[in-house]
């Protein structure tokens, strides 16, 4: 047991574990100390100084987020000295900040703004430094916008990019009055190693890092009567959208979301879950094919382990960081892009629509999907497969703009075709979900039996944040055509967050890993913690989203991708067979090696 420390905060005695910070000790007493640079997902920086408190017998005011408690410490969190100092600090931040809030995308969801309003900073105390600064805005990226004039240099983004993602696209440049958050040689984001994962966006306290929004473009498409606007919604959107519309984390709002989309005026509300299931069929067969070529044909060119390819942040990360391992990536497009390619081919045929009149919109928990949709290879239908990608947050904006009282909306069902879903698709939204969905199907394809886990819950592959989860599955009593897998122990690994992805791939590169199948999600917790999800984010919120996902899965009548009726139909009517000619044309892709600098 750890040592206990006694201290007094605002006259109240409290006993906490040694090493606790003043900030956390105060929160035990329900005293909220304001913070800006502090984020519970990240290491302590202690650089904004907003959380300073008064410590008796100390000349200086320590930062509550960084100062550990000590025995007999007497702390005042709201003394006159503290109030003056905090106000000075917030005023200083505002003086460097382009505080034109009504022109800011984060207006109403900005931590600096709420602090300013709390502190009644109406009458700015100091000189406005903004006019003398040569702030730049990086608008050259299809996914993210970086506006230095809104930046308060808290370095949350820098720590996110380095600690959580090990990408380090963002760093600190220059010093003193010129100090700023920048990229390698100040190149625009699209020219550097940035994966567009958007984790920095989720943690930016102001509007300095935001997604490029396509709200107006989508409205225009909806209003254009000559267009048939199709929308697909990713699995992780339905368990988080409520948060951005005033509901508590962990609410499943699938039915309300579909109603809202209909009311917004989309012509067809379809489900990315459908192509998630389709991905499992294609990717599962691709894995079996690779295994066969390796084990039976002894083909030395087969790249194993095979890694999932649904997470576009992960794809770009691999392209930059381990370009030599690109052959290990499944050639399957992500569900979003499979969907886009099918909307303008299969769906158009079935619905007798001219693909050039279809506008394909996706709602994603992700900012990297915006970049993905703009990749030149994502035009298999002859058109841009996905025209606009909106984040969960942007959908919430549209719902608010339309004046819909979201929590009072009735439930509706997805349209068809391409609207059917299974539990296997739903769990794509959580780390380990693709692996679990794939195993549910692959095992059955290989053995003809259901995977031997209670209620199909393959708990060993359900990853958690902050770990690399390894699991193995012994395959026995195979069907005759899969005899080569008899007795094979299928080795899997699941990782979320690019820092852990890097660890896994380094092991693969060094030949230290003997996996068959790798699932990687770029974001902490998987898509549920995606860069396009509602802000704020923290471990507690993400774990509630995760619970919701598995609750949704458990409640679905169909739990296995190969049981999805729309999937069965598309193979019967259009694709013919997994990895067939049409599949290759529409559902598979290739990757581009990129440089790190």
């Amino acid at each position, binding site marked *: 047991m750890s040592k206990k420390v006694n201290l007094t905060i605002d006259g109240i005695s409290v006993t906490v574990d040694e090493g606790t910070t003043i900030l956390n000790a105060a929160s035990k007493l329900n005293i909220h100390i304001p913070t800006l640079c502090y984020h519970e997902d990240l290491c302590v920086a*202690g*650089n904004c100084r907003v959380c300073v408190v008064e410590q008796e017998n100390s000349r*200086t005011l320590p930062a509550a987020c960084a100062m550990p408690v000590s025995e007999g410490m007497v702390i005042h969190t709201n003394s006159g000295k503290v109030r003056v*100092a905090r106000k000075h600090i917030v005023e*200083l*931040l505002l*003086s460097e900040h382009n505080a034109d809030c009504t022109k800011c995308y984060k207006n109403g969801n900005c931590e600096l703004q709420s602090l300013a309003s709390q502190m009644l900073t109406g009458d700015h105390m100091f000189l406005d430094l903004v006019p003398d600064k040569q702030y730049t805005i990086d608008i050259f990226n299809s996914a993210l916008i970086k506006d230095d004039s809104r930046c308060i240099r808290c370095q949350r983004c820098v720590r996110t990019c380095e600690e959580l993602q090990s990408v380090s696209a963002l760093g600190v440049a*220059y010093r*003193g009055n*010129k100090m700023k958050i920048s990229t390698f040689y100040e190149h625009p984001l699209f020219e550097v190693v940035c994966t567009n994962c958007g984790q920095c966006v989720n943690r930016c306290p102001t509007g300095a890092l935001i997604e490029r929004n396509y709200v107006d473009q989508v409205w225009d498409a909806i209003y254009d009567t000559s267009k048939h606007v199709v929308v697909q919604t990713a699995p992780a959107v339905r368990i988080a959208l409520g948060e951005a519309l005033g509901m508590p984390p962990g609410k499943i709002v699938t039915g309300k979301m579909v109603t809202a989309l209909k009311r917004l005026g989309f012509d067809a509300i379809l489900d990315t879950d459908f192509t998630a299931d389709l991905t499992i069929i294609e990717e599962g067969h691709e894995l079996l094919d690779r295994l066969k070529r390796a084990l039976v044909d002894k083909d030395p060119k087969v790249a194993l382990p095979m890694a999932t390819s649904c997470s576009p942040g992960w794809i770009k990360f691999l392209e930059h960081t381990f370009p030599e391992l690109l052959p290990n990536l499944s050639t399957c497009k992500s569900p979003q892009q499979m969907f886009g390619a099918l909307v303008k081919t299969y769906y158009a045929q079935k619905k007798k629509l001219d693909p050039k009149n279809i506008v394909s919109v996706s709602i994603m928990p992700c900012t990297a999907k915006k970049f993905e949709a703009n990749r030149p290879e994502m035009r298999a239908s002859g058109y841009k497969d996905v025209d606009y990608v909106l984040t969960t947050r942007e959908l919430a904006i549209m719902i608010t703009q339309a004046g819909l009282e979201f929590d009072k909306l009735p439930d509706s069902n997805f349209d068809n075709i391409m609207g059917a879903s299974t539990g296997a698709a739903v769990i794509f939204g959580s780390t380990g979900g693709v692996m679990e969905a794939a195993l549910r199907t692959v095992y059955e394809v290989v053995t003809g039996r259901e995977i031997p886990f209670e209620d199909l819950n393959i708990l060993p592959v359900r990853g958690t944040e902050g770990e690399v989860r390894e699991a193995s599955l012994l395959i026995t009593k195979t069907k005759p055509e899969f005899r080569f897998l008899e007795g094979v122990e299928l080795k899997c690994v699941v990782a979320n967050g690019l820092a852990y992805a890097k660890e896994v791939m380094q092991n693969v590169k060094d030949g230290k890993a003997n996996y068959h199948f790798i699932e990687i999600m770029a974001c902490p917790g998987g898509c549920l913690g995606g860069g396009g999800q509602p802000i704020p984010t923290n471990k507690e919120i993400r774990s509630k989203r995760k619970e919701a996902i598995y609750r949704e899965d458990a409640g679905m009548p169909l739990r296995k991708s190969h049981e999805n009726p729309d999937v069965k139909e598309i193979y019967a009517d259009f694709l013919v067979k997994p990895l067939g000619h049409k599949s290759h044309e529409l559902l598979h892709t290739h990757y581009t090696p990129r440089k790190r600098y």
Partner: protein
Amino acid sequence: MSESKLKRVDLIFGEYSSEKYKVLADTLKRPNDEILDDLLESGLKGRGGAGFPTAMKWKLAADEKASEKYVICNADEGEPGTFKDREILTRVPRKVLSGMAICGKVIGAKRGYIYLRGEYSFLLPELLREIEQYNEFLKKLGFDFPIEVKLGSGAYICGEESALFESMEGYRGEPRNKPPYPTTSGYMGKPTVINNVETFVNVVMIMRLGPIQFKLLGTSDSRGSKVFSVSGDTPIPGIYELELGMPLERFVEEFGDGDTKAVQVGGASGFCVPRKKFKETVIGFEGVPTGGSMMLFNSSRSMYNVLHNYLDFFEEESCGQCTPCRVGCQQLLKGIVAVKKGDKNAIYLEQLLKLSESMKITAKCGLGQSVANSFSSIVNNFKEEMIY
């Protein structure tokens, strides 16, 4: 100016033995406790300016249990108006190396580093030659304590000890949160003693003279002597070793040009003392401490320009990490300009003085906490020069 009024001392630069590294050789034979006792008895405080008791720092590091420990000599002499470490490293590098080795023995470190200011790279060839001789000598003694030099890259902030570690480790020079302090977690996260160049020389001096004799110099709060960098409006600028605890008045009598209106003690981050306070001001830890910089200004100088110059320096040299220092320096600079130009009322200076007080208590590091010293002491004492 008649005869010398201040006691000149020649302990730092003097040569007292024809035998090289004699003090080091003698000290290495002594038990660690005895060395620490002597240091404690001497009352030596760090010569970088902050004045932390050296014996206590060494004891804290000695008591830490760790596989690796380090001794670092802070030779990132960047404070405007300070140039004494350069002189020490040029003339008596042997004493610096000896002091570091003694520290290494006491705390149980196997390695020492000199973090040399980038602009002092011209000292490097001589310094490396001396280190070579030192290494040879140590080999003969059978004591293993190699010393290396690491060069800074020109950032003022890297004189702050934790920013210096970051820089040495190859990162951007930004101060760390404290605690943990360097004696617990310093360079590479290991217990580290980091002292100023002059402090190490003082250690050697104490080892040679004994604490009793060392204590004959200075006052009860400020033991010993100190090397001062004297500059500005003085007929005799240069490096002087003087007894600590002297009244500023006597210093000005000796070094001033007869028309001294203010002395900036401790460099740009130090305090400006106006003529009317010369008498009551003592140079030492009980009064105005200094890392050695003494800048004299006569009545031809505009204190507005002096302050503008300092703030200009800090606006650029703040690491930019914490809000009070990064933005505060810009506000102070732009603020005095606005008042001077009449864009802001004189009363705005009061607002800025309050800000400077906040900066002193909320900045993340020691340097950030001291950047506003010159502002408040100059504005408080020369308000009319700021306005008219």
